[in-house]
């Protein structure tokens, strides 16, 4: 396997793995969300990613960027809530930042695209690190990915590193007080639970690690 590029097939495999993982972890995400919100994060994301997987059946895009743009548009159309626009905008931004028309992206392209995805989430949601959101898993994942790539790592290693960092970031949200989204209404009562958005972000990075693992 080519370990220094993300091509259309691998991008599709990543999104399918993310769909499977989010679906398998629906109950866990529901439990986390019920503690601080209304408990629908798992159900909504599973519905959205299942729809993403369905749109990638059959003849899909031929450019790797278009895979993510289509995934993002589907999430925006199917999920609702805040997570739909946030994840949808992230994937759209990732897709648009990849070289137009290219069948595959190298690791520098992918790192830049992930960066664009994080920027889009932060612009739309206004969240800073430590606000107890998706950003708290996404940012460390991106940092780890960039560091691995700068150190000469191939995709499997960089993805595994990003997934580990996302998981640590998600776990580190437990003591935090939410400052964005519905959990912020709880004030200090939001602390003591792992953030569901950071957790689903970890699942998505873990899916990339899983499909690229040697």
């Amino acid at each position, binding site marked *: 396997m080519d370990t220094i590029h993300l091509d259309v097939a691998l991008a599709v495999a990543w999104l399918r793995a993310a769909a499977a993982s989010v679906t398998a972890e629906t109950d866990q995400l529901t439990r986390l969300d019920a503690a601080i919100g209304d408990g629908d994060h798992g159900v909504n994301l599973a519905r959205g990613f299942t729809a993403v997987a369905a749109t990638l059946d059959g003849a899909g895009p031929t450019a790797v960027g278009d895979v993510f743009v289509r995934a993002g548009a589907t999430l*925006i*159309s199917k999920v609702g809530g805040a*997570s*739909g626009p946030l994840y949808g905008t992230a994937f759209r931004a990732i897709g648009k930042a990849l070289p137009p028309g290219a069948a595959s992206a190298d690791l520098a392209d992918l790192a830049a695209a992930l960066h664009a995805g994080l920027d889009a989430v932060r612009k739309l949601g206004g969240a800073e690190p430590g606000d107890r959101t998706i950003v708290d898993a996404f940012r460390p994942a991106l940092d780890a990915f960039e560091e691995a790539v700068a150190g000469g790592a191939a995709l499997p290693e960089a993805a595994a590193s990003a997934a580990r960092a996302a998981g640590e970031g998600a776990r580190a949200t437990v003591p935090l007080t939410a*400052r964005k989204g519905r959990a*912020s*209404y709880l004030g200090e*009562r939001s602390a003591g639970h792992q953030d569901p958005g950071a957790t689903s972000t970890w699942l998505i990075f873990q899916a990339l690690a899983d499909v690229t693992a040697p």
Partner: protein
Amino acid sequence: MKKFINDPADVVAEALAGLAAAHPELRVDVAGRFVARAAAPRPGKVALVSGGGSGHEPLHGGFVGPGMLDAACPGEVFTSPVPDQILAATKAVDGGAGVVHIVKNYTGDVMNFQLAAELAADEGITVETVLVDDDVAVENSTWTAGRRGTGATLLVEKIAGALAEEGAKLGEVAAAGREVNAASASFAYALTACTTPAAGRPGFDLPDDEIEVGVGIHGEPGRRREKLRPARELVRSALDAILEAKPLNPGDRTLVLVNGLGATPLLEQYLVFGEVATVLAERGVEISRRLVGNYVTSLDMAGLSITVARLTDEMIRLWDAPVRTPGLRWGV
């Protein structure tokens, strides 16, 4: 938890089909997920579109009709609608005079309505957004997503809707909606959690002698948990919070909405209204218009919200104007 449902995944679509069967005067697009007046669009009339998660009925679909909304977009239970359905509803009712989006201040609702407004602008439809954020239990600070939209949404939809019905321009209708929101404050208590169809069990556990103070309308826990107290004490605390946020002077005229969250009997709601009337009378504040009942609900949550809005002559006139919707109906 027992519910009259078939499959949790089908609840919203099947409830919309039922709304259509019960109200042939409405145009219900089950696949497109919006409810509109059958006669929309009316050329030259500013259209009002609202929406939000399902589970708050009659809000918003039950407020579609002459004198109030032109269309409503129900999302999944407690989940904001998606941009596609908001855009479809906006296009379905745009009469060429612009469309007002009435949006409750929740992160998801704000984002999805914003995306829809951008898409509508691309198609040449001018959209003005009125954000409703009347719930004073949440501090309006950089540390939160800001105050939530709750009971005042009904007031905004009614008063702005009446003005639009008279032929007012887009900017005037939006300004009236914002004025109503600015004049309103709400506070809610929950005695029990509610159960979403998908979760199947209550969103939080609450001991028999405790209540959630400062809840919203999505089954989330409130600001804090307290021991249950007599209704007259709970009402005084709620009004303290409301009047601290939006002070009233002796002689001010108000609208008071005592709103059941779903499972609290009208018997208790009227009792609470009586307590509110007592406290406001002590302060010399006049209750000029009143409403008691389940209007902005949170599925099967036991609890209620109190909304107090300071009224102008114009607001009273527009509140009294005819309205004909499934959930609110007078003067016709």
